[in-house]
């Protein structure tokens, strides 16, 4: 059982490495944004597997935090790419 969890963790870390190649080489900015969002979601999976490996319940609370932070980062980055600003000043447009 533990061997299976270790193998899954190593496979997920290897796929994060493959996504880092797309972050490094991606031809446009939204390519890098998509790869970074996928890396954030894979970090959640790795945290869930580490919670089984270390046999603790306290890593589970980290999962929800990382999910919220990754979503906020994705939304603000894509809004910046789309409009050039994140928080707009004049609201009557």
């Amino acid at each position, binding site marked *: *059982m533990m061997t*299976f*969890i270790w193998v*899954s963790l190593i*496979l*997920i870390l*290897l*796929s*994060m490495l*493959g*996504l880092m*190649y*797309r972050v490094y080489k991606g031809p*446009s*900015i*939204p*390519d890098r*944004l*998509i*790869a970074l*969002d*996928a890396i954030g*979601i*894979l970090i*959640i*999976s790795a945290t*869930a*597997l580490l*919670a*089984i490996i270390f046999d603790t*319940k306290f890593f*589970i*609370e980290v*999962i*929800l935090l990382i*999910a*919220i932070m*990754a*979503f906020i980062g*994705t*939304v603000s980055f*894509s*809004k910046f*790419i*789309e409009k050039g600003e994140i928080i707009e000043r004049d609201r009557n447009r």
Partner: protein
Amino acid sequence: MTAIANTLVVITISVGVLFSVVTMIGILRLPDVYTRAHAASKSTTFGVLSILLGVFLHYWLNEGFFSVQLLLGIVFLFITSPIGGHLMGRAAYISGVEKSELTIGDELEEVVAEAKRRAER
């Protein structure tokens, strides 16, 4: 009982790991930013949901700990991850990333051009 629980955990976690690896292959090999967004948003969502379900089953069946936070994380990821994919694809289209030459037809192009013309006026 433990054997059934371990089988369920192994099946769900291996499905999740398989989908994560497929995500990596899709993002590395597909030709276009839109197809890459398609690969990223769907299969990472299903992969992480499956892995979190496996961890939830492990804590519930093997250790007797019903984790509400994992269920909340599953629901939150299931809602927000497609929204993130939609926003990234929209940002890529409006900022003008070119499509691959395999694309046939683009019905959004006239609508976006019309909206830009109306915004400038």
